[in-house]
């Protein structure tokens, strides 16, 4: 513990980082999910998001327990296995001003919840959808999930014989407007992507390879710390400039593309070896295919589209939360009932 008497640091809305923490994690020491929880705390603190404006939503599984471990001043709902998309959608229907943060796992999303996930994507529901992807069922002690690669093995040595779902490819194909892949061990990239996701309006699917230290961190695994470290292929280097900071500061070196996000923040994308245009959906799908063939884990911002209307906009509902509209606005006047009754006479 620090022994200095300096007052604790505060963010732009006057809150300390403590205000963004949750209860103590009950996940295994070294679990990738804990790193993701830490990144969430940092990002929401750094950007000065009001915690009360956030709704944390999850399904069932180790990943889905984690919303209890961050943003303790935000409402949370640990719901039903595979059904977090419905819960997020309903929550936003009731209150469109909420910032919905969904946390799910590969079992939750790619198996039992695949249908709901696809419909969430298709609707472009404005939310952050983090998949804590470890290729294995943790809470039921180590069965394969549908994102496990062909040939990867369980701890017992049993190999997986079925092809994996690539949640990023599914999201790309069917309409998500922000698709990224990262690694729980890549602190800077994950932080930048999460901040960009907070600034984006539309569905952000962020698939984070998040190793399970207990059931899937062995040699035969393609979701282990060592495998991902050895095979991670970053598409680009990312920097995030929040809307409340001067855009001119800290211009990164090299060839840079600037993406302006919905809230006025900027994402700066610096080219590494390859040419990559994150607004080209087909190129993104091709890049994922190529990487999969080579056994690489392609990370970075795969795709972004800042112009697509989200689901709530398409519903043409009033600007205020439907949840708290007063009676005068939700019960039509007597004349309306009289009119209908006259038609039925």
């Amino acid at each position: 513990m620090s022994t200095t008497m300096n007052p604790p640091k505060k963010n732009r809305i006057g809150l300390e980082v403590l205000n963004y923490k949750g209860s103590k994690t009950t996940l295994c020491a070294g679990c990738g999910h804990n790193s993701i929880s830490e990144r969430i705390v940092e990002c929401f603190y750094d950007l000065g998001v009001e915690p009360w404006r956030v709704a944390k939503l999850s399904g069932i599984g180790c990943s889905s327990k984690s919303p209890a471990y961050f943003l303790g001043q935000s409402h949370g709902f640990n719901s039903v296995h595979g059904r977090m998309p419905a819960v997020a959608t309903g929550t936003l229907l009731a209150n469109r001003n909420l910032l919905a943060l969904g946390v799910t796992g590969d079992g939750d999303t790619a198996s039992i919840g695949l249908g709901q996930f696809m419909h969430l994507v298709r609707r472009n529901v404005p939310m952050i959808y983090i998949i804590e992807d470890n290729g294995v069922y943790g809470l039921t002690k180590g069965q394969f999930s549908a994102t496990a690669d062909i040939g990867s093995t369980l701890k017992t040595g049993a190999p997986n014989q079925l092809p994996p779902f690539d949640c990023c490819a599914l999201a790309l194909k069917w309409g998500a407007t922000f698709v990224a892949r990262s690694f729980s061990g890549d602190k800077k990239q994950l932080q930048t992507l999460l901040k960009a996701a907070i600034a984006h309006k539309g569905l952000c699917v962020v698939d984070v390879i998040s190793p399970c230290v207990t059931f899937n961190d062995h040699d035969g695994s393609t979701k282990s710390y060592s495998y991902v470290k050895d095979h991670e292929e970053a598409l680009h280097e990312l920097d995030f400039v929040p809307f409340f900071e001067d855009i001119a500061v800290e211009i990164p070196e090299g060839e840079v593309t600037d993406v302006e996000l919905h809230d006025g923040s900027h994402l700066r994308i610096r080219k590494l070896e390859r040419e990559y245009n994150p607004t080209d959906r087909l190129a993104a799908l091709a890049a994922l295919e190529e990487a999969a063939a080579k056994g690489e884990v392609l990370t970075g911002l795969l795709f972004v589209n800042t112009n697509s209307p989200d689901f709530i906009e398409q519903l043409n509902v009033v600007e205020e939360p439907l949840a708290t509209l007063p009676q005068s606005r939700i019960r039509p006047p007597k004349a309306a009932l009289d009119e209908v009754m006259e038609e039925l006479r």
Partner: protein
Amino acid sequence: MSTLEVSPVEPVSRPSGQPVMNDFSIQVATVNGSGSQTANNVLMRTLFQMGIPVSGKNMFPSNIAGLPTWFTIRASKHGYTSRRKEIDFLVAMNPETAREDVLNLETGAAVVYDEPLQLNKLRTDLHFYPVPFDKLVGPVCPEAKLRKLVRNMIYDGVVGWLLSLDMEELRKALVKQFGKRKAKAADLNWGAAQAGYDWAVKTLTKTDPFRAERMNATAGKVIIDGNSACALGAMFAGVTVVTWYPITPSSSLVETLMGYMKRFRHDPQTGKATYAIVQAEDEIASIGMALSAGWAGARSMTATAGPGISLMSEFIGLGYYAELPAVIFDVERVGPSTGLPTRTAQGDVLKNALLSHGDTRHPMFFPSSPEECFSMVSDAFDFAERFQTPVFFMTDLDLGMNNWMADPFPYPEKPIDRGKVLSAEDLDRLGGFARYKDVDGDGVGYRTLPGTNHHAAAYFTRGSGHNEKAQYTEREDDYVNNMDRLAHKFEVMRRHVPAPVIDLREKAHIGFVAAGSSDYAVRESRDQLRAEYGIETSYLRLRAYPFTDELKEFIAQHDRVYVVDQNRDAQFHKLMRLEFEVDLIAKLRSVRYYGGLPLDARTITDEVASQEGR
């Protein structure tokens, strides 16, 4: 060959020679997709406009076109509007079913039929009226494509003459049915009705006894189906989030609601909607959205039928434990998947009462008329928010999709009750709150909504593993305390659900208990038992579960109580057996009907008379 075929035998079941006024049922047998619905509605409305009590029931197949459909109109000067088993007047338009339709009739019934079918050869104890529909339709409908539709209106004209209907009322009904925008179609159809009428005047000789005459029993009333009444109820209850998945027979509830919401629930300044209606990908998603919308503070609902409820089971269990409000409309029907989905039943009673895993109990509301469909919806929404729990609003296909007479709905004057929700100001005053603490002794904690601008507003929602402060726990005492509080909450609900409607008769030793659409048949059956057997009965009409003390008292007051169930397994009866002491259970008898058709009085009367040894 359009001469009348007169039956040589005098009908025996009705007194011969005497006209039967305003007391008959008409059945129109057609093929679905043939556009007969308009003609049938016009016929029903004509009787209604003549002041005669009517009801209209559509018995349709699970199919879009080409299978048999029967529309039954009952006119009853006594005001009985349940299904009448006997058909007095058959309009046989469907060659496929005509033979069986005719063979099933009681002696003395009348049959209007398409001449080439030669139905008169089947029996000699009926009144046959052959009509050359094809010959009649040509001149009034030059466009061949439309003839299939317009020919239905010819039977309206023929029946109009046979029953002495007021043709001016029929014209008005037709204009109303087509609306102002389809004036041309209305003209074309009126031409066909007139052609049928004129042909009948010239050609037919009436031999059957059935006649309509003007009376004054429908003034001021409306005709509406239960689904539309539920939809209106939901709109005036202030529903804000509607999530659903199409399923017969509930789809029209939401579709009708969409129409009304478009008209009456858009902000006059901005044109924006004060509601959201979302068609989900399945019932699991629709209930997930509805319950989470309720969690986030919306007045939310979904509408479905039995198979949808089965899919919703897991979420509704969570709704019980996480204490989430939503109204679930269950328009009950027969069977799973392809098991008679277009036929009626009250088959979800037992399942819904105890739906999901673990110890769960759910309140159910049972409206029995369009008026109650409308008014009790507001009560159901208030109840869901007041008790923070899913509420089943149970109707069935008969009540939901068929046409009923009703008094105009009174405007809801009671202010909307949003239940125990703490605002940021409340939290400032209180300093904090414990989500599942029973502060008021009614088992209901205070909640906050996501988006409440206060550092102490947040809480974490999950299943049954939580303590008063909504913190995760697997402790035995926390779990038991929570379970006991939920049980207590259910007991408190018992005192707040809609009370039963009771008609006690002094001399009655036996009583009826029924709910929902059974009411129409039970009321008629009570009159039959009195008139035919001299049996006087009392009647308690259930309007909700959990059962209230009135039910126990009612059973105690009578020697025998007949519980009416529209299901094989006597589900209402069984639910009572689960709760009551043996002395009460011993008095319960069961009357069941589960054939898929709307319940009729005769079935009840026969069964009770038989059990009473008569």
